[in-house]
């Protein structure tokens, strides 16, 4: 599973990244976590509001700082 956090580096993006890493680690999920900060790459995925989260190439959240449980629910839903 590939989990991507999309954001240019603002505090909200960093919080989402931390919550995502925490969710993956807590549940022992086998996942590659990737941070995408390039604005062109972010927009190529159609994301107009950051932070955003994508799982296996599908954007599952836009413009929200999800907490650990919310990230976990999306990861489990994508499995």
């Amino acid at each position, binding site marked *: 599973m590939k989990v991507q956090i999309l*954001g*240019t580096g*603002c505090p*909200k*993006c960093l919080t989402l990244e931390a919550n995502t890493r925490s969710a993956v680690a807590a549940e022992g999920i086998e996942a590659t976590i990737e941070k995408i900060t390039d*604005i062109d790459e*972010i*927009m190529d*995925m*159609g*994301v*107009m*509001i*950051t*932070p*955003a989260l*994508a799982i296996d190439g*599908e*954007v*599952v*959240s*836009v*413009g*929200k*700082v999800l907490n650990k449980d919310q990230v976990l629910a999306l990861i489990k839903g994508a499995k």
Partner: protein
Amino acid sequence: MGCACGLDCPVLISYACSGAANTGLLADQVARKLMGDKVADMSCLAAVGANVSGFVLSAKETPRNIVIDGCKIGCGAKVFTEKGLIFEHYVITDFGVVKGKTPITEEVIQTVSAEIASRL
């Protein structure tokens, strides 16, 4: 993409029909003009219609979406309505542009974009 991190500032995104007629061309040009003037960002209507996840979710989470259709067929509005997305609607032919007839000049682009901008 403008200032849009976590919706801390107003986000306004336009979607143009970009159809084959002169009105579709004008819809596209007006959306680009609004983007150039920093009135509204622009995203891809076709991608929303094609259910590309990032585009659909961005439209869903954006406080204000502007759909600019060329004519009264309203394909852009239909795409947004079908997906349950909230939007404000503008139709190019409502601004005195005649489908298949009115030449799309810089003056027309300026006039229609200024009119839409004044209503936002």
